């Protein structure tokens, strides 16, 4: 069921990626690489060096957007950080960002553990809190350095991910015409389809030495329990069976949707979703960023917006739809006509 949060304005979106870039076709010892690149649609990806944490990418993006919007750090009343690769298991990375950005100590800061649906879930949470607590200005920070969770001998996952951080500036306004429509869906029965099996310090999943040893699976992909595992067929079925229906329901209720920004998982999932939606006469524009950024997890929607529409305006409503880890889906329909979209910067 679609909900409406009234009086929320997306003021600006900024993104930051690492300078280092990996071109997939140059990856050595990979016999089927051309065929896989064609299927997943990813030619190159920004990749963080081992020294870079998610907060570094987000921090640079935050400083950039504050400067460009001429927002003062002391005016920020809430900061939410969404990531599946936080700097530490504990403490929360949002606290580190609060200090580095010199936000006032009364700022509400919190972390959310989500990946590919993180941006849209984050927008829903920050908008709801800002409305309920009457907070005027907020920052939604999302980002991941997923490449650091991938085993370099995992032949498919090693070609998929890019690293990025992004910050979206949100304003609580009195104008009831600035609507943020949203819907969400969770199916925890699929929790093992995207998982880092052993990344905890407590309980039965805690990281211990025997568990982190590399093992070969039946498809000869090498992984340890500290690496990310993707069940491609499970994710594929979840996405193509749920996303088109989910988007169709929303678009039947909200008119004038011009753009559909999907999470950039891989080309095959994207094509299949587009195909099903276009068959149902939902003629949206589907901007993309996969080719040069890969799957940037929680940052993939803002990366797609900024890589295609920097310094431009987006007329009509934009539907943003994130899906993945959990398994989870969320969608937000928002008007970005006044939103300042900044060029992607590098760290």
């Amino acid at each position, binding site marked *: 069921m679609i909900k409406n949060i009234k009086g929320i304005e997306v003021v600006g979106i900024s993104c930051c990626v690492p300078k280092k870039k990996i071109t997939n076709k140059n990856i050595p010892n990979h016999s*089927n690489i051309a*065929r896989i690149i064609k*299927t997943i649609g990813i030619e190159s990806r920004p990749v963080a060096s081992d020294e870079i944490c998610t907060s570094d990418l987000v921090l640079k993006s935050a400083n950039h957007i504050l400067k460009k919007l001429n927002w003062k750090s002391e005016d920020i009343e809430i900061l939410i950080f969404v990531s599946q690769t936080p700097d530490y298991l504990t403490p929360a990375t949002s606290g580190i960002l609060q200090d580095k950005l010199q936000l006032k100590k009364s700022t509400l800061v919190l972390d959310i553990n989500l990946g590919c649906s993180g941006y849209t879930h984050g927008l829903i949470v920050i908008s709801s809190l800002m409305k309920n607590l009457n907070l005027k200005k907020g920052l939604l920070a999302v980002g991941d350095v997923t490449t650091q969770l991938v085993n370099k001998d995992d032949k*498919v996952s090693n070609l998929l991910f890019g690293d990025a951080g992004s910050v979206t500036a949100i304003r609580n306004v009195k104008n009831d015409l600035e609507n943020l429509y949203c819907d969400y869906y969770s199916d925890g029965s699929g929790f093992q389809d995207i998982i880092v099996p052993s990344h905890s310090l407590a309980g039965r999943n805690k990281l211990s030495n025997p568990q982190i040893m590399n093992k070969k699976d039946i*498809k000869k992909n090498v992984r340890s329990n500290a690496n990310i595992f993707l069940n*491609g*067929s499970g994710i*594929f*079925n979840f996405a*193509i069976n749920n996303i088109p229906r989910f988007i169709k329901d929303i678009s039947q209720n909200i008119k004038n949707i011009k753009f559909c920004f999907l999470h950039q998982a891989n080309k095959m999932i994207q094509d299949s979703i587009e195909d099903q939606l276009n068959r149902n006469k939902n003629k949206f524009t589907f901007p993309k960023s996969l080719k040069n950024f890969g799957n940037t997890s929680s940052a993939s929607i803002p990366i797609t917006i900024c890589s295609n529409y920097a310094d431009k305006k987006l007329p009509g409503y934009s539907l943003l739809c994130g899906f993945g880890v959990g398994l989870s889906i969320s969608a937000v329909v928002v008007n970005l006509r006044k939103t300042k979209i900044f060029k992607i910067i590098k760290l």
Partner: protein
Amino acid sequence: MNNSKKILKDLSIILEKKNLKETDKTSELKHFDSVIILQIMNLAKTTYEKQIDGPKIEKCNKISDIINLIA
């Protein structure tokens, strides 16, 4: 062209094998990895409106088994 022949033709494109036969064994194909399985799932869903689980495709010994899943 009947459905089986059409599926065989579609599979020959995915598997990059011109003279693909229903009797061909999946274990003897040049490529039969997780990406191929996703492509077959995609074909089944988008062209034949059929949802197939990846592990079922993985268990197919012959091309005819895959055709039977999709048809």
